[in-house]
């Protein structure tokens, strides 16, 4: 797997550390009434077969957090953006 780091260019997978699904959104509130949202966020995963957005750290390179879009069945990598850009886009979508 080769990952196109927006900062470093194309790099091989051994330079990266995978955190996992980038879709779950951290609940905004600490209110015990939001327990279900927290449970969902911490423990449950869609775990899709196919297209997947995931948090990846370029630990062996520029050390930036990225969101990589990849196919979990074929390992084809479609692209990568910085986690900052991803968060910005997501905020835009929610607004």
């Amino acid at each position, binding site marked *: 797997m080769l990952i196109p780091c927006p900062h470093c260019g194309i790099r*091989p*997978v051994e330079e990266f550390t995978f955190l*996992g699904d980038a879709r779950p959104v951290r609940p905004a509130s600490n209110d015990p009434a939001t327990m279900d949202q927290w449970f969902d966020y911490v423990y*449950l995963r869609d*775990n899709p077969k196919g297209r997947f957005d995931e948090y990846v750290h370029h630990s062996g390179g520029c050390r930036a957090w990225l969101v990589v879009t990849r196919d979990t069945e074929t390992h084809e990598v479609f692209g990568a953006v910085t986690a900052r850009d991803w968060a910005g886009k997501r905020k835009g979508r929610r607004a």
Partner: protein
Amino acid sequence: MKYSVFSLLKNAASGHKNWTPAWREPDPKPEYDIVIVGGGGHGLSTAYYLAKEHGLTNVAVLEKGWLGSGNIGRNTTIIRSNYLLPGNNPFYEWSMKLWEGLEQDFNFNAMVSQRGVLNLCHTDPQRDAFARRGNAMRIDGVDAELLDREAVREMYPFFDYDNARFPIKGGLLQRRGGTVRHDAVAWGYARGADSRGVDIIQRCEVTGIRTAKGKVVGVDTNRGFIKCKKLGLAAAGNSSEVAAMAGMKLPIESHVLQAFVSEGLKPYIDGVVTFGAGHFYVSQSDKGGLVFGGDIDGYNSYARRGNLPMVEHVIEAGVAMIPSLARVRVLRSWGGIMDMSMDGSPIIDKTHIEGLYLNAGWCYGGFKATPASGWCFAHTIARNEPHSLNAAYRLDRFRRGYMLDEKGQGATPNLH
């Protein structure tokens, strides 16, 4: 047909032309009392114990590929019961006991070989952790021995004891651990279940789960709709996909684990040995190949094949432990899809849907569990209530805060 010396001699006399197939190839019936999704080790052993222990034989096992195409035919065949936590040890020890009687029980040679599982330690804190785990095992009636460096050297003189970075300081040995011929386990359970009336249906993929009023009514498959009163899911790496058919989201991620086999060598490594300073473990098959592996690659995957960095890591760790391995040639490597759970422990439970049962979350260690998993899952399905042995494997433990986390890693599946 019962397998014995006599059947062997009799068939030898007729040129081995009259052996009958070990199981039938039935077409699915329109309806069963119980349908099991997944003809891996766990699905087949569940069907076997449903029939044998609970007299429930109107049962079908639906397998989308062929028997042995999943993890049951891809693992590195290690069995052990060397856990730390009270929720785990009685379960895995029961599995070990079932292994010990399995071949007689299902009349099939599964090559159960209790050749010993040795975990190496390389630091003092690691030895302390081994002492603690060994004591926990003994409290639960499991055999465990803490070996010093010289005792390990006596067993395996050719390891690198004075490696500058990873000197070997000792090990934790479970003599009753060992290996079992993995696909023979699938075949033995399949044959045992089939002979008691269970239908094992290969190339039958479940594509949908139908429920009505909160109850399971049946499954859609590529061979038509099959009605059932109870439905057990044992789809290992595909658990999330199958559970999603019933609208469920699981505390599971799918990851790839690789394994390797070398060219055949003369007897070299008697038991199973795990390196403690990197991800590497090895045993030698009866054919002479070294069977070895390491950790999961670390990213979500359904690909059944991994990448080269993990191959490099495994081989580097292997050579650090056994320098002479550097001259061994690797013949094959492959991957399997692991159902990694959020605490590294499995789930055997009923669900919020009446008649729907779940067996999943085996991570990279479900082969050793095959007998007890089927035994407990059969009990849970037949009685609609978990057995005390799988009481710690409830699905709602994450919500209740009763994680069973041997490594203490938290909800990060790729670190378990």
